[in-house]
């Protein structure tokens, strides 16, 4: 990697990306599914001349615009900013491969913004047909936006047999593109249903709230039901090494799935309750539903990210930013212009371990992971790293550099982890 590393060892770049990404995917899936709910509720309200439902839809649209534009759009830019800092090689490779897909997504993003603003501001000014058409444009643009980004994200996990940079479409429609698209569409309907429930739970018009919670519960149940085969389809299309990780070989994924299961259970029970006894879903239950939705979404994203290891771009760039075709025994620091020679151990940690490990921090602390190991043990472990833990990239460097890293890590253990 011939980029500098933004080094904040107590926090870690991965933690920053994960924090922003989980908030973003939660809001952005709401942004995709929410348009569908807006059009559905407005259509119902107009068809049945239901004034309370119409007023609710208008207020929901106001909340929707604020949440999706202020939090959704900016955290999306935030992910981009963060990955540019933490994974510049991977970001650059992705941008150069998919620049025109991203540019098309930008156009769709612009259509989304303009259509939702026009939708909100023309609520009582346009005919039903025109206004619903504007809502429909928003729905289409936001789902196509998901379609575009889905191709790029799935490429990172399952690039298929793509080799040349110019081959965009075969890279885009990669083996997990369609299962992921179906799963994300279900998650979008589910999360937006949870938001409809939450906003309805705060409504003072209880009969209306009960009706809405029942409708949203039905939507959530359908989405959960459809998500299940999508998950199996997704798993089936994963390459064998990745599926092994997901099925239990990666401790990170095991922890992540331990969160997903109770969250899915809470959501299933909640959706059934919403259908059967919508009056029981008050503000606390709605908030628990949203929290469970956040955990489920976060767990899915965390699993997907962890399943990609040891790569950030499957088969070509390791998760620490090093190119996979780099010779493993080649001296590392002398061919890394942004490293300095005065502290080889620290520099090796920074360029090869820090992308996933913090030093005395909360996420994946390397000092905890190597507790009780002395320098010779660490050196032996580093030399077998990829063989023992296939989800970790192999160490790149000379035997002397491997020793430097081991000694430095052992010293950090002794000194109590001050970077």
């Amino acid at each position, binding site marked *: 990697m*011939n*980029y*500098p590393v*933004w*080094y*904040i060892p107590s926090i870690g770049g991965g933690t920053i990306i994960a924090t*922003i990404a989980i908030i973003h995917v939660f809001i952005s899936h709401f942004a995709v599914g929410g348009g569908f709910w807006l059009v559905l509720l407005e259509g119902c309200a*107009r068809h049945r*001349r239901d*004034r309370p439902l*119409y*007023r609710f839809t208008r207020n929901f649209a106001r909340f929707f615009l*604020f949440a999706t*534009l*202020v939090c959704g*759009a*900016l*955290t999306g830019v935030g992910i*981009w*900013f963060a990955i*540019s*800092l933490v994974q*510049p090689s991977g*970001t*650059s490779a992705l*941008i*150069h*491969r*998919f*620049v*025109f*897909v991203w*540019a*098309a997504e*930008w*156009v*769709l993003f*612009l*259509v989304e*913004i303009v259509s939702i*603003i*026009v939708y909100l501001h*023309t*609520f*009582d*000014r*346009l*005919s039903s047909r*025109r*206004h619903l058409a*504007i809502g429909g*444009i928003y729905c289409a*643009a936001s789902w196509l936006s998901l379609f575009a980004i889905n191709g790029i994200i799935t490429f990172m996990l399952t690039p298929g047999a793509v080799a040349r*940079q*110019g081959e*965009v*479409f075969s890279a885009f429609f990669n083996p997990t593109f369609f299962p992921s698209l179906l799963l994300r569409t279900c998650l979008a309907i589910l999360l937006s249903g949870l938001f409809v429930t939450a906003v309805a739970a705060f409504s003072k018009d209880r009969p209306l709230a009960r009706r809405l919670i029942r409708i949203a519960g039905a939507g959530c149940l359908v989405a959960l039901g459809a998500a299940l085969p999508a998950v199996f389809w997704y798993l089936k299309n994963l390459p064998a090494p990745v599926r092994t990780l997901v099925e239990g070989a990666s401790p990170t994924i095991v922890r992540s799935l331990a969160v997903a299961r109770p969250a899915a259970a809470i959501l299933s029970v909640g959706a059934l309750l919403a259908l059967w006894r919508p009056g029981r879903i008050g503000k606390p239950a709605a908030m628990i539903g949203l929290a469970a939705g956040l955990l489920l979404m976060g767990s899915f994203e965390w699993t997907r990210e962890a399943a990609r290891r040891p790569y950030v771009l499957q088969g070509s760039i390791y998760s620490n930013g090093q190119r996979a075709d780099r010779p493993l025994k080649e001296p590392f620091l002398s061919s890394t*212009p*942004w490293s300095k020679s005065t502290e080889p151990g620290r520099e090796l940690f*920074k360029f090869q371990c820090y992308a996933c490990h913090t030093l005395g921090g909360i996420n994946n602390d390397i000092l905890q992971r190597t507790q009780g190991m002395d320098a010779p043990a660490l050196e032996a472990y580093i030399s077998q790293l990829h063989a023992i833990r296939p989800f970790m990239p192999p160490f790149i460097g000379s035997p002397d550099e491997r020793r430097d890293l081991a000694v430095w890590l052992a010293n950090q253990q002794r000194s109590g982890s001050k970077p």
Partner: protein
Amino acid sequence: MNVLVPTAEALPAGWPLLQGLLLLVFPLHLLAMNGLLGTTAVVLLIRRRNRPLDRALAPRLTASLPILMALTINLGVASLLFSQTLYGQFFYPAAILMGRYWLAIIPLLMTAYAGLYMLDADLAVFRSRPLPALCLILALLLTVPFFFTNQQTTMLDLTHWRAYFSEDGGSLLNLKDPTVWPRYLHFMVAAMAVGGLFTALTGRRLGRRNPPLGAYAERIGLRLFSRMTLLQFGIGILFLWQLPQPVRWFILGGSLTGGLLLVAASGIALAMLACAAQRLPGLCTVLLVMQVFVMSGLREVVRHASLAGQLLPANMPVLWQNGALLLFATVLLAGVAVLVWLTRQAMRPPATAVISETESEDDRAMRL
């Protein structure tokens, strides 16, 4: 070649095409950003004066701010995309050197954006004391371009990159670069001018229904626009003077393109002053759009001159992605058509939908 400059990736299309796309979207981003920043300053100014006409004008201008913010962000995304494609090997190191500030841009923008929506919604918390909220929003909006200016100048100042070896925690601003402050001032004064022109255009629109309010907005807007454009001559000369001599020479005659663009920019600025004096905000707008495109071109000339020997477009490998390019062109055309239709819907007069003024919004909606 500086060893710290990373190896460039193969371009997905020819340099001129990508450069053209950047030069298409970046000026649009600048126009939206300048409109946002300048108009926020105008709102603060008139809220502070608090005369009857100011009180009537402030909410009209405030209503536009969240929309301008949304467009600024969207167009900024496109600019960053093409900028990273063309200049990634300079862009990423510059952002990493000042990582803390670079990432801080996101929460700063989110706070300002949320504040603008709340201000527009006239929430009780802001109604009684709008000035502190506006000051905070403006301060945030002024901070973001300061960080961008630092990042963009760090891209060009490769000698500053060596500071990374003593500080790798992402807290390196480029404050020792003499061009940083003039460059930042140049953008901020431009923003105030655009804010003035936006106010004048809003006045022109309001004048159809409320002539005194319209005339007032047009007068204060054009006055601010003229003063800031005049001030820009001084700032521009200061900025030019602070550029490294070889780069300055590139603009002052060393390059035909650079020289022509500088002459065009100066001429357009004079024409804008004349139009503002004649109270012609429409013509001023046309000239302003031209000016922003010309200045963006000049900016690229400065960038290429600053990176002479490091940035070699002719030597960069190109792997044409014709299919993806065609897809983008199709989506762009369809998107523009949809945007035009949406804008027409937004402009439809509500009067056509109203039967009587006593009719409630709900009743009207049900009838529609």
